């Protein structure tokens, strides 16, 4: 192990002599991680949706005696999508050109239908065929759901008003026409004034039972309208950009780039420098040389990964973000960084052994790292083949390990499984690298 330590120390010294290279190797993956974050962030960005108001909606609408705050409702929708008011033809043009992803039209007669409470008023949604349209449809469905809930309340209140009228009697309006109703109470009083009779008793009994049943109508109507009610709690926890998943991707992506490129170049450079022959004369065995590159990769992954974890932690602390402060999980992440760095370093050493020339090895490592990373970003549930292939490389296991270490309430089973994957893959790649390292002597 002494020779391994000497080679690692030598490599670190050489790396220190190449600050530009080190800077690029550190900055590049962080830049890539940020770009991936931006792309992922775009998926969460508010889509632009046109509101075509052919009806000329007022700020407040009265339905069934209930006041509807139309402007307020539109503002609430604006939290999920960016609503822009456009005329119908302009909305159609922008929809075709892709400037907006959907248009929501309030057709003429909407308010009349709404107030009439006989026919369902309609909103017309048109979307593009892009991948984001599904989300827009979901968001508009959510909007209609929210509107329907408000309307349900109004309709129920109106209907309950009619039922009270049937129960108690009095004056009411329907479709703009006034009418007077005797009501069940009035009917009961009228029946009291009639002489006792079997037929009258039957009617009196009906009035009593109907009154009892109609007393329950209010709650029954509300329960029927909302069999399950979703109640939203207050928003807590980390913002999206600081989420454990993003931290896990940033960590894994950064150390994957760094370790693969460095380990590949470091092993191949032993041949470039013509030092491999000198080392191979019993001073350092090929196995020890591969181990030295794996240790180098693990050490660098640990140093850089720890810096990223601490940076995230500081931002979370300073920003007062709640939910999953990272400090308690740092030891787990540190162990994961070392293991993932070693596993990725072994893969890098294999590339270095196969390619044999430092610059070419770096290029090949770069070519290899991109598909590995992007395969790892594809959800297994969406493309199972991508999941199987990425399982054969350490990146995806590093992501899962970091995410679990940072976030899971009880991470041990995931940690054990992913650590076993990383250790197994690392051992296989290191063995292959040792076999391939014979090529460096040629």
């Amino acid at each position, binding site marked *: 192990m002494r020779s391994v330590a000497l080679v690692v120390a030598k490599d670190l010294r*050489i790396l220190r002599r190449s600050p530009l290279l080190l800077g690029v190797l550190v900055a590049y993956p962080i830049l890539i991680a940020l770009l991936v974050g931006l792309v992922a962030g775009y998926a969460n960005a508010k889509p632009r949706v046109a509101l075509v108001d052919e009806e000329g909606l007022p700020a407040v609408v009265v339905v069934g005696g209930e006041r509807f705050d139309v402007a307020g409702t539109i503002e609430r929708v604006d939290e999920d999508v960016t609503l822009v008011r456009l005329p119908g033809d302009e909305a159609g043009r922008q929809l075709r050109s892709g400037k907006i992803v959907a248009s929501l039209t309030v057709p003429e007669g909407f308010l009349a239908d709404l107030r009439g409470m006989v026919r369902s008023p309609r909103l017309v949604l048109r979307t593009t065929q892009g991948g984001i349209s599904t989300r827009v449809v979901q968001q508009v469905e959510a909007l209609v759901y929210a509107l329907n809930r408000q309307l349900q309340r109004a309709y129920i209140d109106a209907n309950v008003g009619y039922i009270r009228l049937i129960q108690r009697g009095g004056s009411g309006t329907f479709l703009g026409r006034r009418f007077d109703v005797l009501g069940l109470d009035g009917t009961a009083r009228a029946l009291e004034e009639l002489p006792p009779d079997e037929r009258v008793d039957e009617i009196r009994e009906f009035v009593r039972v109907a009154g009892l049943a109609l007393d329950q109508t209010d709650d029954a109507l509300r329960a029927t309208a909302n069999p399950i009610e979703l109640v939203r709690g207050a928003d807590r926890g980390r913002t999206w950009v600081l989420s454990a998943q993003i931290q896990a991707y940033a960590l894994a992506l950064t150390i994957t780039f760094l370790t693969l490129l460095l380990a590949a170049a470091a092993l191949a450079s032993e041949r470039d420098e013509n030092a491999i*022959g000198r080392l191979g004369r019993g001073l350092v065995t090929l196995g020890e040389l591969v181990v030295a590159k794996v240790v180098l990769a693990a050490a660098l992954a640990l140093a850089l990964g720890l810096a990223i974890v601490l940076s995230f932690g500081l931002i979370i602390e300073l920003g007062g973000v709640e939910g999953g402060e990272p400090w308690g999980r740092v030891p787990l992440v540190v162990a994961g960084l070392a293991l993932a760095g070693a596993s990725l370093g072994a893969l890098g050493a294999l590339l270095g052994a196969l390619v044999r020339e430092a610059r070419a090895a770096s290029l090949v490592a770069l070519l290899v790292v991109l598909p590995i990373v992007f395969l790892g970003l594809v959800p297994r549930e969406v493309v199972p083949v991508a999941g199987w292939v990425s399982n054969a490389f350490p990146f995806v296991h590093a992501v899962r390990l970091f995410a679990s270490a940072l976030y899971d309430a009880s991470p041990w089973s995931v940690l054990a499984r992913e650590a076993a994957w990383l250790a197994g893959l690392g051992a296989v790649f290191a063995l292959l690298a040792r076999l391939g390292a014979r090529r460096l002597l*040629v």
Partner: protein
Amino acid sequence: MLLVAQGASRRFGSRVALHPTTFELCEGEAVALIGPNGAGKSTLLALLAGALEPSSGEVRLRDGTRVGWAPQRPAQYGRLSPRENLEFFARLEGVPRPERATERLLSDFELPQEDRPSDQLSVGNRQRLNVAIALLGEPRVLLLDEPAASLDPRQRRLLWQRAERLRDDGGGVVFATQTLDEVDRFSDRVACLLDGAVVFDGSLESYRESRPLAEVFA
């Protein structure tokens, strides 16, 4: 016998770089390896140094014999200074007091003392460092692959003085060269290689008499 290659051969894929070769190096002997480019001199030296595994046969060293090897292309780290290179290899060789050994070799080979990376040195200085690394640990056997090719006359003289001193102290020297003058002046024995095979191995006198490969060196 300090060093013996018994039927040692080396292939690189399908290409035979050195056919099965038997070669011996005795105490107090300086052997010149000569032959045209690609004859197998560097491969034989690398096999003797242990830098390459023989494809067949074996290479044996007398117990406890240290071997120093200076390959034709300097084997050192360009980003490290001469001092750092020497210290690194000294520690790997297990040289006691590596700093002191480094200082001595830096001084003996008149190498730059400052922390300038080796790849910024002149070709001659890099070759001096290459030979200096070979001398770490005071080897009994010195294997030199065209060591004087890029050295100035003074450094050549110093190099051969060191080699002669090692030989006179009972060590052994094997050197590959393309300069017949070096063969005449510094060798006791000459081995001629052609197309990966030793075609002549004899004393300097017998070499002078028969002049094998004369057409190559004409």
